């Protein structure tokens, strides 16, 4: 595949250049980057000191060192996921609404710039900035490699999940920005959606877990167990933090990066389920694609 062509297309999009220039011209971009790296560094130091304190040894043995490496790596990834969930919609929720508020939207719509170029340009510039954040955190993340315990698979999967999450949350912001007239409601809606997806899914997950344990104790019907297990598993896979944690658990417990055979809640037979990061990646990539199409549709729609 020729990777130069899409990159060239991205760079040829006037919106990308305008947005990136505008973003990097102000202080905001550098302040955000500094705060982001500062937070990650702070947590790493805390964990390192904590682990060093409880082991109470001057020289760690290899297994302790590896455990420390895993802990630091996992924390950095989760922290990055969490921070990206906050930063991404903030970057894009005003993408289209700000053009409306600034009264530049009509100017753009009467040019030959297509709705697709406008949406992808806004998205591209926001995602490029988020990639900068992810890349900037790599040296801090790589501290974990000095300690060991982190494999290439984990690095690839975590990076993939970070990229997919960044893309999805940016697209969510763009979507609300394209359907709403003002930035404030678009921003509130984006964050509310993210919060709901975190909270509601967790609540549903625990409800399913409860029903499953009750039904198993009462009826012991395997088919019901399997359906509930699959539903719970799917819900885990829709939440970035839970998906990342469960992927790591499966990797550590079963040495498997792609699937698990363990029943979730103590059912009779093993069920083959894909590792949560696979479901997460497929699901969120699909949702991202749908939201991009919807955003283009709403931006392209003439006023009535």
């Amino acid at each position, binding site marked *: 595949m020729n990777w130069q062509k899409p990159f060239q297309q991205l760079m040829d999009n*006037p919106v990308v*250049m*305008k947005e990136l*220039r*505008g973003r990097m*011209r*102000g202080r905001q971009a550098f302040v955000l980057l500094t705060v982001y790296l500062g937070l990650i560094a702070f947590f790493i130091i805390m964990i390192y000191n904590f682990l060093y304190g409880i082991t109470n040894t001057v020289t760690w043995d290899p297994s302790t060192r590896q455990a420390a490496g895993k802990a630091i790596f996992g924390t950095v990834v989760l922290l990055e996921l969490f921070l990206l969930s906050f930063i991404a919609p903030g970057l894009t929720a005003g993408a289209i609404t700000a053009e409306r508020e*600034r*009264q*530049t939207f*009509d*100017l*753009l*719509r*009467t*040019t*030959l*710039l297509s709705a697709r170029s406008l949406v992808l340009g806004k998205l591209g510039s926001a995602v490029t900035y988020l990639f900068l954040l992810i890349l900037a955190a790599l040296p801090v993340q790589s501290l974990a490699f000095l300690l060991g315990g982190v494999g290439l698979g984990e690095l690839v999967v975590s990076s993939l999940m970070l990229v997919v999450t960044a893309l999805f949350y940016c697209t969510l912001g763009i979507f609300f920005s394209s359907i709403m007239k003002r930035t404030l409601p678009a921003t509130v809606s984006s964050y509310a959606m993210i919060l709901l997806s975190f909270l509601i899914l967790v609540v549903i997950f625990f409800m399913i877990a409860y029903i499953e344990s009750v039904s198993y104790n009462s009826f012991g019907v395997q088919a019901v167990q399997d359906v509930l297990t699959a539903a719970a598993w799917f819900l885990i896979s829709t939440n970035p933090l839970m998906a990342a944690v469960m992927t790591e658990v499966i990797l550590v417990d079963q040495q498997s990066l792609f699937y698990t055979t363990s029943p979730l809640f103590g059912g009779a037979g093993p069920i083959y389920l894909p590792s949560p990061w696979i479901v997460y990646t497929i699901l969120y990539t699909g949702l991202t694609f749908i939201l991009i199409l919807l955003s283009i549709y709403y931006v392209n729609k*003439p*006023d*009535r």
Partner: protein
Amino acid sequence: MSAIIEIRELSKHFARRLAVDNVNVTIESGEIFGLVGPNGAGKTTTMRMLVTLLEPDKGEILVGGHSVRKAPREVRRLIGFMPDSFGVYGDMTVQEYLDFFGACYKIPTAQRLSLINDLLQLVDITHRRDDMVDTLSRGLKQRLGLARVLIHDPSILVLDEPASGLDPRARIEIRELLLEIARLGKTIIFSSHILADVAELCTRVGIMEGGKLVAVGTLDELTEKAVPHRLIRVAFLNQVDLEKAQFALSAVPGISSVQEQEGLGKAEWLSLEAEFVGDDEALRGVLANLIAQGLPVVHFSEETQNLEEVFMRATQGIVS
């Protein structure tokens, strides 16, 4: 000249309000067409449909033969639009601003620089090229807006209130600039509340009210329709018997509604105003008649009707 814009039976509703009601007009290539009307008359709505920002409910607009519904991109190639209030990207320099819009019109990078140089010269803001757009005055932003609409060399400029909110000097400068742009062969359609500007710039005028296009034509044509008679003013030296003069003037064929007029010329003159129907030759006859009767005529003129009078007669203050 050929028709570059054809608007046929154009209508637009907003909820239950009829904003544009069955508008029909053809605009020729190279024209400066002024659209005037009170607030809420439907001027901006008509313009927004013309530039593909609004979808008409009924009717058709053809721009250079392209339908705004079926071929909006082709229409956008031909039109440069400046809304009544438009924003600018304050965090860009003047050059970056024009370069961005040049890129939006797919103008190759190599051509953009020389194009921007030419446009900055045309609108006379070359000296502010590297300044941030936010630092420009309103008048200069308006000039930058004009440079922006010209960036893709469109045949038609659609300008909604281009002089609104400008100080008198900036307004005159924009007017001069529009005349210069018109000399480049562009068709200009603009709306304005400043009727003097419209009268001075436009080759034809359309008057809108309540969503309807109530009158279209050159200023002379509109005047002729709105005011069917001519208004003449005559002044005499003060030794004249005004009643006799009034009687003499009333007796001339074509003259009616003779009234005493104050404030014409010198204070000691005695003046009359009358309505007259007839051509220039008949008008010459009126003057000859008065002189033949020995009346001491010192002033004889026809009051030209201005756009304000035509506008007031054509409209009734209806808002759609």
